[in-house]
């Protein structure tokens, strides 16, 4: 159990383009205690065990005093991603009613045409251009349009909630040794504002619903009594932000990875049936979410180390995804990989709520981009990354396209 500064190096922006050697070091160490006392876990099986351990909490209020580091006005109520059962289960179940089975089994499938239409429009806008920023011109607008459509949020309000969203993401970042008070306060404020905005939208639809999820939240008869105004705000903010910030990275990381593997790119172009598997492999090889925090409610043993109650544990999903004890030849990008039970969506009771939508979006987006990528080249490799070590992905991904003949 080494005291080291792995976390500082992982969160150091200089290592953003390639944190994987650090993850290999982490797996070598097993469980790594950090200078601030928190722990990093990077082995696949250890991470899975902790995800399924009912003695680990997702609720930051369970941090021991010295680790709380949060202003007293932390957001209330909390989104279900930061809650434990039974509250988590109640809120997540309510949020699932308009999103998936059993009450809305066809919801995601019914979005396919819409997602394809939005994708085609974006592709259309790229016609004739020789230089494109994959993030700003494609990977960002696509999920934003989709989540807006799904929730029932006017697309033209995007610039407003993009600012809120940035502040929220920023407040969720992990930067050891820094006082996060300022970004926490900014994040909470943004969350409150976005929540009010979304609840107002939902309230306008009470009594005359559309086919969007905000409408469903305020109109669907629900035996459990439905969401309070505050719960609706927290849930809607979570869905908008999560639906908005992770798929961008999945698509962008996908384009970057394919351009770095032209043989695989060519193969996918010839065999589009491989796309679903390729998206799974991307979720393993370059996952959008690299770190998740949990808090032990009691002393918990992991790989021979006892992590004390209340001390934060960071599960490094992206490290587990490259664990050679679980995946053969883990640093190889292989779209035909079988037995690919990656941690890209997490695992356990908090497993990604939006996974079905993310899969469909990424499959459609990459499928539509493939024909255009065969002649593309990266302008910068590595590209400039976003700040966050938690939600890792390029901020920009400029590529050159061959001029149309």
């Amino acid at each position, binding site marked *: 159990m080494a005291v080291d500064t792995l976390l500082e190096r992982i969160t150091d922006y200089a290592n953003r383009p390639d944190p994987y050697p650090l993850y290999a070091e982490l797996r070598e160490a097993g469980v790594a205690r950090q200078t601030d006392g928190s722990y990093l876990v990077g082995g696949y099986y250890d991470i899975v*065990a902790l995800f*399924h351990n*009912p003695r680990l909490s997702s609720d930051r209020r369970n941090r021991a005093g010295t680790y709380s580091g949060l202003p007293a006005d932390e957001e209330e109520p909390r989104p279900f991603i930061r809650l434990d059962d039974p509250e988590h289960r109640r809120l997540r179940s309510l949020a699932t009613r308009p999103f998936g089975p059993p009450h809305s089994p066809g919801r995601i499938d019914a979005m396919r045409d819409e997602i394809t239409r939005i994708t085609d429009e974006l592709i259309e806008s790229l016609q004739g251009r020789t230089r494109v920023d994959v993030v700003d011109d494609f990977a960002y607008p696509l999920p934003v349009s989709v989540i807006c459509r799904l929730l029932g949020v006017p697309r033209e309000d995007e610039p407003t909630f993009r600012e809120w969203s940035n502040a929220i993401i920023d407040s969720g970042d992990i930067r050891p040794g820094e006082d996060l008070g300022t970004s926490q306060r900014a994040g909470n404020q943004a969350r409150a504002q976005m929540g009010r905005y979304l609840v107002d939208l939902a309230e306008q639809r009470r009594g005359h619903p559309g086919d969007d999820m905000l409408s469903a939240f305020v109109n669907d008869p629900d035996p459990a009594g439905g969401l309070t105004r505050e719960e609706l705000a927290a849930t809607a903010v979570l869905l908008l932000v999560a639906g908005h910030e992770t798929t961008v990275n999945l698509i962008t990381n996908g384009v970057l990875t394919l351009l770095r593997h032209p043989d695989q790119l060519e193969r996918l172009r010839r065999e589009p049936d491989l796309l679903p598997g390729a998206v799974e492999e991307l979720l393993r090889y370059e996952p959008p979410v690299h770190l998740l925090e949990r808090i032990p409610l*009691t002393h918990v043993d992991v790989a021979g180390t006892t992590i004390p109650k209340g001390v934060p544990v960071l599960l490094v999903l992206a490290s587990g995804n490259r664990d050679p004890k679980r995946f053969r030849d883990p640093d190889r990008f292989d779209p035909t990989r079988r037995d690919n039970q990656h941690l890209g969506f997490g695992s356990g009771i908090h497993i990604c709520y939006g996974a079905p939508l993310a899969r469909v979006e990424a499959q459609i987006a990459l499928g539509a981009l493939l024909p255009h990528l065969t002649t593309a080249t990266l302008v910068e490799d590595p590209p400039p990354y976003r700040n966050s070590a938690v939600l890792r992905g390029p901020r920009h991904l400029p590529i050159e396209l061959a001029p149309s003949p």
Partner: protein
Amino acid sequence: MPGPGDLREGPIVIVGASLAGLRAAEALRERGFTGSLTVVGDEPHPPYDRPPLSKQVLLGMSPADTTGLPMRRDPDADWRLGVRATGLDPVGRQVLLADGESLPYDRLLIATGTRARPWPQPEQAALDGVFTLRTRDDAGCLAERLTAGPRRVLVIGAGFTGSEIASACRERGIEVTVTERGTAPLVGALGGTLAKLAAGLQRAHGVDLRCGVTVTALCGNAGGRFTGADLSDGSHIDADVCVIAMGAVRNVEWLADSGLAAGPHGVACDAGCRAFDMYGIVTDDVFVAGDVSRFPHPLFDYQMLSLEHWGNAVAQAEVAAHNMISPGPPRRPHLAVPVFWSSQFGVNIKSVGVPTYSDQVVIAQGSLSERRLVAVYGYRGRITAAVTVNMAKWLEYYQGLIEAAAPFPPAPGAADGHPLVTEFALPSDVPDPRGLSHGPTVALTGHLPDRRLTVVRPAG
């Protein structure tokens, strides 16, 4: 005895064309078996899946003939369907078939599974309206009868199959009476404490549940139609459909003269799926997999287990196939921790380990009142099983504890708002399976662990 070089050749016969038989056939080819492969099945259908028969099929959501098992690869086998194996000549290495033919083999896999235990009085069982539920044809006929809108269905036996049938009936708005010789539904699989939850669930869903009684006679009218049944408490139930759900009988009769260790509990084998002969000597060329097998499990003191579990059939078939074509040292043991699931009355029940191998049980997460819980079973201070009700995502954690023989009760402090009340570990109250009208789906084929000792106290 073929030399190691021959193991990928030479004829292999698999008797049993259901889940275990099919998966074994696929696995043999996947692992490079190139010889001739014959699969014998007494039903005319290609392999199909059984779990949906008591759920989606009875609910009318999918026709019985749509539950065919997907083939992951063509096993390139000679399928002998609709013909029963009637005998085994282990010296001449022949499987005898009902049509008079005999199939020579180098290695044999026995995967004949189980059949529904029939009602003991054949003339009563023959009444129109009396069913068992094991095969696709059973499910098709029963589903048709349920669609016709019977006034009341009588289900005899409240094990998993009986309870799922009752659940399907209630979901379709059909009145149903369930009789159970034990103290509560599912008592044989889950023990008496959790079975109380099951009883509450059934009653809350409008099931007329009668426990501690047996059916003494099935009654019919002059036209030979089932009309009702007499119970041991002197009462009579009027019903127009009756489902016998009294558990399963292992299909071993055809092995009676084979010299193998085959009996009512199944065919005994070692951890590598190799059958034992009647003297307890392991065979080299006869393997067993699926419901018909009984095998020793180290996590449960090497007691012989018989499992009627989907997952066990798959896992054991793959180990058997691997060992059939592997010479000594690379052979693998089948040590999978038993797992099964059921859905009924709107809840999802999942189990890992062997709940009947226990003396105590504790609710580790959730609560009975929420109908959402994890019950953890222990035997002499170690964890031997866990059952979740609507909390299946936690199961993996408890499986790890079972495999590690972690202390029972588990540590307190689960993150769901309920402190673990360890001082309330209750007797798990596992009944003697002989007292049930159905069998448990996990049978310890020796004895219950807490009844192995008889304390003899000197008089006076």
